[in-house]
């Protein structure tokens, strides 16, 4: 249901999420994010171009790292959310706490500048 690819592009770690994130597949997302944060990556980009659906459990995963990101001074950007998924982030209010960008290049630019 979900496929997460982790590629290092320069000093940015890019996680490409493909598929649906529901209660069971959110564990994979959690593992991927956790290992990225534990390996002391400073710039993480989560590309959600092919993320079709995210359940509340999936949102819970992103939410649970907000504090860690802040504490470790990590720049985490989520980009290319489709309208539906973006709406879900927005309703919950997560867009206020996470950095969401419209496109991959915009996100990279942002991460590069920082």
């Amino acid at each position, binding site marked *: 249901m979900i496929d997460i690819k982790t590629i290092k592009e320069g000093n940015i770690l890019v996680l490409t999420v493909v598929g649906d994130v529901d*209660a069971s597949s*959110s564990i994979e997302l*959690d593992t991927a994010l956790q290992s990225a944060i534990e390996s002391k990556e400073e710039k993480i980009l989560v590309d959600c171009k092919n993320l079709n659906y995210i359940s*509340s*459990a999936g*949102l*819970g*995963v992103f*939410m*649970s790292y*907000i*504090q860690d990101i802040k504490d470790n001074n990590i720049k985490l950007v989520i980009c290319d959310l489709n309208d*539906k998924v973006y709406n879900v982030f927005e*309703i*919950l*209010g*997560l867009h*206020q*706490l996470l950095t969401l960008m419209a496109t991959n290049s915009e996100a990279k630019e942002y991460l590069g500048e920082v």
Partner: protein
Amino acid sequence: MPQKVVIRLSAGFAFIFWLFYLFTDLFLLFSRSTDINSGIHEAVPNLMLNLFITSLYVYFRYKVNRAESVNFTDLLWNIFLTGLLATLASLVLRMFMYMLGSSKLAENIFLIDIIYIINIGLISLFLVAVFAVWKRLILYQKSKFLLKIWTTFEYTLVLSLLFNVLPISLPESYRLYYVVLLVLMGLFLSVNMRWVAYLNFKQKWKSILLIVLVLLYLGYFANSLFNPMNPNVEISNTIWNNVFLLSVITFTFIYALFSLLVILFNLPTSSVFEQKLEEVVNFQKLSQSIQADQSEEQVYQILLDSAVSTVMADAAWVEINNEKGETEFFKFQITPKEISTIKSYIVKNKITGVFDNSTDKSLKLDKHLAKLKGQGFKSILGFDINVQGQKIGSLALLKEVADGFDKDTTNIIKTFVGQAEVSVENYRLLNQAIVNERYKEELKIAQKVQSSLLPDKLDSNADFDVAAFSIAADEVGGDYYDSYRVDENKIAIIIGDVSGKGTSAAFHMSQMKGVFQSLAQMNLSSKEFLSKANTAISNCLEKTSFITATIFIIDQATKSIELSRAGHCPTLYYDKQKKSATYFEEPGLGLGILRNDDFHNYVEINELPYRAGDVVVLYTDGITEAKNRKGDEYGYDRLKDTILANVNENPNLIQKRLIEDLYSFTGTEFIDDDYTILILKFKEETEHK
């Protein structure tokens, strides 16, 4: 008539008829010797004899059949006793005559006749008893055909009683033919010896002894019949005239002889038969063990015992790695040290065919085992025990002789192991089923508890009506709604949704209820309420969980609503004046996402006046995210349209229409998410009255 009565009656009749037989015969003898016409027909004594025999026959027939359980040696013992008594009585009479010597009394024809008739009575008694028992033995495990033959034989035999009483005298040869016919039938029937096979070794010896004694009695009686005590005295009846007695004595003798021979020849093989029987019993034990509510250990013990007794092993063990990860041993004449020596030897030398799934178990292991000094075992047979596709242990059988296990016994042990595996598997599955059943019961209780957390009826006042409906995808869910009357004018209403679903969501939902019920009393603003709720709930939520909620405070005094949104689905508000519905998208943040004081920066208060006919629609994302077969979501627009189409109805009907539309959209009978609908409608002017 009850059997008991028949038995007593027939015994009484037998005795009466015998007395009649005695007196009529004596009377006839007397009248003959004195040349006085007695007025009694010559055939009367014989008729009485026939009636006597028939009564005896009825007596034994019921007596023998009454023995419910067939115990063959008991049956033989009974006829042995009858025979003993009859022979003893007969011998006493003989002694009596002997003591009389050649006195005048000894010559008395009446005395001789009396003694003869007593003897006939005794012989008949014994013969009929034996006959009844033989019948039972022959008809053991009868077939339809056998039963037919036997019935024919029995009727022919009864018919032979007529010979004595026929008014016309038939040629002597007819009697002989009849006897020959009966004896031939008897011979044919005498090959039925199924009962012999069911005797064990000890019973066979006992039967042989009893049958030999029965044969002796028969011989004695035959002798006394064929050679009367006093040949000089002519007696009205001789055995040669009685077709019945002659046939029965021959038949009983033949069957006794046959039985004796068959039992003798069966003696050497009886141990094999017994062993086979034991195998069947063992097999049955193994397959029944689960039903008797036994534990796994008992199954292994039965397996060990059965295997040992079947192959007559000198030593054996069953090794089981139980579910707790411990290794258990069930041993037979072997020490743990010997087991480990043998096992390590097999592993070290990589001997195959012992504890693996090799099909060939008859490998030459002797040369290996011979090297096991001090063990004394020369052959070994091993089997894996697999349950639910996993090896849980093994069975090993040892013998002190080489080549101790043949293919037959190997197959039997294999079947035993298979049966034990099935038993253990059933036992485990049953236990699992019981545990699952208990969990289900627990969930049902949880469901009941949770449904009691949602109010049956929400608070309302003269200004509005409200309808609410909630359903969980699993037994329990994470959706929540509630209301609280803060004061005479204010009513607080909340709708909430815990992230995830199922049991963990249900726990958080009940926490949320506690938080709402406590904070609502404090008459806070909607924003303060959410801030405090966030603080309270943050302490009890796990890291990845959050709760979304919208809180409403409806004030009748100011005719206004105050609401704040904590990341919950935007409220749909229908404005009657504008005739339009809009979603309130004021900023907000889910509870538990930001677990510090910053939270209040992300929530706002939305305050608006309400007017009659306005409708507030609260819901959880189970509604908007419900999918049809194509994967489309029900969505915000469809929700809005459905509400607009039904906005003039009362809240209950609006809710009903919405649910109907939702299911017709998904096309299923089941929506795989928790969902909740809460419709609040401000009463129109007309409705006020």
